[in-house]
């Protein structure tokens, strides 16, 4: 049908061809793909990116679940507004996000805290942009959760912590993992929020996306493409993981 044809053409032109061009370019440089990817500065950027992204994902797993819990189970005035505010990192341009963090936690911040040009700044920026992910994957599961399971556990002697650990969390886990994967994928590619506040010091506070940008500006598209392919593979792998998790979620609900 025409729809399928148009859809395929659109996707090919917009997504597939451009990405194919990146993969192609990564093999065409003066340096080999391997050399471009093992360049010390590239390795440093990738390492930093991965470490910070994993850290951010883990922080989000805990804080995100906590915030989702408060939003679903607690009642307080203004809760609706708080719920809407969660999506701010999505609605706000990344460059503005970086600027806002710089305003508060940079050299002229009112609290006297200055994390500009440090790795802490990267952490801060990534925490900002990844905030909604775990919260939004956990919320619907928490809403649907059978409260009577928790009441049953309480009647059987479990205290609040035990109820959470043994009954609630196992049912939330796939959603948490899903959100963590999304946060991770977002974090490894982040550029706009990091670029102003981190200072982009090579080997110190330069993340992968900034390194790639630097390679483009230096007229080394192949080097840029090579490291891009690494990010591409990581992103794709994370997407597959999330897809696999979605299927696994229904394991316990499947009637044998």
């Amino acid at each position, binding site marked *: 049908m025409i729809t399928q044809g148009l859809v395929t053409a659109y996707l090919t032109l917009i997504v597939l061809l451009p990405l194919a061009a990146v993969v192609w370019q990564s093999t065409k440089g003066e340096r080999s793909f391997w050399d471009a990817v093992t360049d010390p500065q590239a390795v440093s950027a990738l390492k930093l990116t991965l470490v910070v992204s994993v850290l951010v994902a883990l922080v989000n797993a805990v804080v995100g679940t906590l915030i989702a819990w408060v939003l679903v189970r607690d009642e307080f005035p203004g809760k609706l507004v708080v719920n809407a505010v969660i999506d701010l990192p999505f609605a706000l341009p990344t460059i503005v996000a970086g600027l806002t963090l710089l305003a508060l936690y940079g050299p002229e911040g009112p609290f006297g805290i200055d994390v500009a040009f440090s790795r802490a700044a990267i952490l801060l920026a990534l925490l900002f942009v990844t905030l909604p992910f775990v919260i939004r994957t956990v919320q619907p599961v928490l809403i649907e959760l059978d409260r*009577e399971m928790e009441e049953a*556990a*309480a*009647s*059987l002697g479990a205290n609040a912590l035990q109820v959470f650990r043994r009954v609630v969390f*196992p049912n939330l886990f796939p959603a948490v993992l899903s959100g963590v994967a999304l946060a991770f994928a977002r974090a490894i590619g982040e550029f706009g929020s990091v670029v102003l506040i981190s200072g982009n010091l090579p080997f110190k506070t330069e993340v992968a996306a900034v390194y790639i940008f630097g390679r483009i500006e230096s007229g080394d598209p192949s080097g840029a493409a090579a490291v891009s392919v690494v990010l591409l593979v990581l992103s794709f792998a994370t997407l597959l993981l999330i897809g696999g998790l979605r299927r696994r979620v229904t394991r*316990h609900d499947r009637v044998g």
Partner: protein
Amino acid sequence: MIEARSVSKQFGSFVALDDVSVEVPAGSLTALLGPSGSGKSTLLRIIAGLERPDDGRVLIDGHDVTSRPPQKRGVGFVFQHYAAFKHMTVWKNVAFGLEIRRRPRPEIKERVAHLLELVQLGGFADRYPAQLSGGQRQRMALARALAVEPDVLLLDEPFGALDARVRKELRAWLRRLHDEVHVTTIFVTHDQEEAMDLADQIVVMSHGRVEQVGGARDLYDNPANEFVMTFVGEVNQLGRSFVRPHDVEFGDGDEAFVERVVHLGFEVRVELRLANGEELWAQVTREEAKRLELVEGARVRVRPRHSKVFG
């Protein structure tokens, strides 16, 4: 003994319980019977500690437990929709309370095995709740509640989600279980047949108040008011009198026209219309129906053997 004393509870502007007092003798099987909104589930949950009363107290064996959380009351609770821990196997579900109490492993294994046999789920230990039928899930829930040897077993419309045949089976099964295990049991139901079948004592409730407390026979033969009479057992209302269908005698009395005769196996249900237009129905045996030649269109005379009027 379990006691609720002057318990009141409101949800917003809805009064769920209004100064309710109930005594449940130790070792008995008591039913809280009433229509939806009568407050029976709320009362049960307050006894369990899953809700807090606005007023009144709950006492278990003389101890005031009103301010104690459910963990500390020694109650076992069974929910209408099972509340199975769907991420755990049947074995883990039943063992849950024992694991929380950190009982030694061999003790847990033995106790769980014993309970699974008791509820006839012996071979199902490694299955997940999703793989069980409704009836099996409820039996698992019962085993789980009994595992920690509660002082009182509370069941909230335990068979409500099951179909009719399974319901009857589990009813008989619960009675047998109670005879064996002897734990004080309170269950909530809206099915008066179920209450009369199972319970030693029935507490009839309506609109947040206790209407009457008594055994099945007692409630049926000596209802305290109109509500109890119409809720427990079938009844005809003629003017201000209430007549049981099997108390409708044929022979002498008012003129009536037989509108319909329904043969329900052993019983026959005869739908009648009186000269003054009122409708009632009589319950007779097949032999009686034959003897009295009760057919559609027949003209007969009827009068109540007993009737009740409430002030």
